[in-house]
């Protein structure tokens, strides 16, 4: 095998772009928050002029996404491979994909209002990635040298992006349906109420969340199958209940439960929205806690 040249200078440049993206996302986040504040104002005149702010927010977020995308791409080029072989890279690529899918999905008008949420999530992921997960570029160890790394992980990240948007919509839905928010005279409740006015109605939220989860579930099923095929090649068995496999299965089963809930009397609506959040919590748990603290084959320390 020809040794792969690692380009350390380019990797540093990549990091600079990631930092730049964080700075720009911070600005767009502030614009979105400001927009929400204005759009929920008591005064109609202020409300009516808030649309421009949202547009400005999307433009700034788009510029942030551009920097983010350059950061991800240069990281990949610097190591001559796909930029998702460790947690740092998985985080920057994953959050980029989430932003990208969100920006594409803006064609669906109703999800514009979760911009602040998606923006904040991407910012948070990048923050954690650069501070705790950062590692120097490395060549891949043999078990990761497979086109399955491209297929399996890309689809997993995509699925995560869809689950994420669905979870955001489920949160909005649950807030909407929360009696306290609906009725209380508390200042906070009335504030939330006003923010929620910007969102589509409950039925629409529920449906949108369901649709994103459906796509996420299909992608996750594919991730699971692709993982099994890869495991057969790399670890001589298609399924071995390795911790990461266990959690992939758990997530799949929770979302299968979610789909059933939507077809079960008394379980659609709030309960299934909660299931969607439980599912997404498992996704996050799988990526953070399981990767960092659990023992298993997916944690590569070198082939022994």
């Amino acid at each position, binding site marked *: 095998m020809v040794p792969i040249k690692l380009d350390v200078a380019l990797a540093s440049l990549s990091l600079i772009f990631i930092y730049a993206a964080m700075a720009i996302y911070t600005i767009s986040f502030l614009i979105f928050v400001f927009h929400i504040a204005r759009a929920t104002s008591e005064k109609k005149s202020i409300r009516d002029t808030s649309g421009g702010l949202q547009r400005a927010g999307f433009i700034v977020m788009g510029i942030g996404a551009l920097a983010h995308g350059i950061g991800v791409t240069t990281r990949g080029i610097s190591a001559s491979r796909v930029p998702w072989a460790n947690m740092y890279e998985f985080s920057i690529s994953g959050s980029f994909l989430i932003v990208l899918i969100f920006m594409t999905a803006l064609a669906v008008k109703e999800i514009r209002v979760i911009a602040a949420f998606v923006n904040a999530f991407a910012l948070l992921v990048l923050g954690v990635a650069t501070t705790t997960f950062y590692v120097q570029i490395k060549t891949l160890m043999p078990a990761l040298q497979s086109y399955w790394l491209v297929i399996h992980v890309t689809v997993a990240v995509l699925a995560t992006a869809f689950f994420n948007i669905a979870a955001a919509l489920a949160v909005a839905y649950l807030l909407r349906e929360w009696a306290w928010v609906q009725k209380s005279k508390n200042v906070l409740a009335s504030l939330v109420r006003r923010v929620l006015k910007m969102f589509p109605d409950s039925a629409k939220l529920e449906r949108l969340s369901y649709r994103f989860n459906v796509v996420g579930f299909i992608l996750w*099923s594919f991730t699971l199958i692709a993982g099994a095929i890869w495991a057969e090649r790399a670890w001589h068995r298609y399924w071995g209940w390795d911790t990461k496999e266990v959690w992939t299965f758990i997530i799949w089963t929770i979302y299968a439960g979610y789909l059933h809930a939507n077809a079960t009397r008394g379980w659609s609506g709030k309960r299934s929205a909660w299931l969607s959040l439980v599912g997404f919590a498992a996704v996050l748990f799988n990526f953070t806690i399981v990767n960092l603290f659990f023992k298993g084959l997916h944690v590569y320390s070198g082939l022994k």
Partner: protein
Amino acid sequence: MAGFRSTRPSDHVDSEEVTSPDIGFRGWLRWFWRQLTSMRTALFLLLLLAAAAVPGSIYPQRSADPNGVTLYFQTQPELAPWLDKLQFFDVYSSAWFSAIYILLFVSLIGCVVPRTLVHAKAMVSAPAAAPKTFARLKAKAKFEGSENTLDNAFTELKAARYRVVRNGTEVAAERGYIRETGNLVFHISLIGLLIAVAIGGGLSYSGQRVLIEGETLVNNLGSYDSFSPGTFFKKDSLTPFSLTLKKFEADFDLQQVNVGTPTDFRATVTSKLSVNGKPKNSVIRVNEPLELPGANVYLTGNGYAPVLTFRDASGNVSFSGPVVYLPQDANYTSLGVIKLPDASPKQFGVLSFFYPTVAKLQTGALTSAFPGNANPVITMSVYVGNLGLDNGVPSNVFSLAVHGLKQVAGGKKHPKIELTKEGETVQLPAGLGSVTWDSTKRYASLDVDYNPAQLWIFMFAMLALAGLITSLLVPRRRVWVRKVAGGFEVGALAKGDDARLEQVVEELKVKLAIKTPKKKAK
């Protein structure tokens, strides 16, 4: 929202209207069966299955991490036996985990069979007649038409690949039957998958063998270091083949930021399918197993095997050959054990370290700085005493119980034994003779795996995926157009989620209204 929430076809045999059971044993039985096959039970069992899978990721599992279990017993001697009784170290074959998924699959069968029958009937019958009133439909529209409207509606819907019938003043259409077909294919494939997994597991075997360069593995029970057969395994499932490890090579990265990361492992082997068969050369890599008829051979590990010769004081050879050293860290600081029960004047054992690229720590201890064989050194600690090999208790070849033995070399207090280059001979203390480091070989850990159901498993997985996609993404909807007082009305109802329902009605309305020449569309 009714259309969205009750996502099952309305003609689905609904088994949830179960209230109080009939009296008598058969009544109870029927009641129980209905409960088991209800949607709510399926949901509950699915969530329970997810929850039951969690402990297997918290506690070490015998199947995936047997050493972890042993370690757990050592560190938690109080708790471990209790957890073991509850099968927490074998979660995925435990009685409780199995109970959940078996119940789930029984429920699944009970669910799928009647649904298949209902669906088969629906497939051959005409689309359902329109409801009396469209008041409860979410997607509906009124428009003025002409005498051709119903004909037009018929052709229009037919062209859009609906199944259409015309009854008097009404056109009824339905599309997307394949949604339910997909759903059934998906669920049935899951059953197929489970059966294939079970049968495959029963017929499978998996054998592990450490093969030193030059050694040959013959596919029979005796040649494996460890072997795990499935329940239905028979000796003659072992297809005859032999495999010789010609050469093992490893590449490690030398770049500044990445020194020592492995970049490639290659085991060059020749295989023969019968004693007189034609030998075939191949290379096994980590992601590229060798596929032989009846088994795949995987590369799962590797290390160094220095060739050592021990001679007693009068020059008689008591041991000679390659010794497998197990890597202890990423830089292949490796530990080897040699037992010499037949050495004279007394038996002794050796604990030995191999450093492929030796370096000194600040403490003065040796370590390896790079996994490649750049500057190798071997050190040894020698223990004399009864090795306990003749009392019939099987002992691990990779460990030496030094308890009760007397150390005579190595460590701080005893003479050092250090071999710094191949060909070197060093005298052992206490009249034990000498050791020579002849050369260094490499070894590969190979896994030979056979699972005849793998193709079936793959096919069912693909079928399930295809069924799933169809069932979730193809909308199933009914559309009706009929004549009413003052014009026509069109209405539609989806079974399950349908993003385009309103749009479809709107488009149909516009199309049908436009085809009415004189009158204006509403």
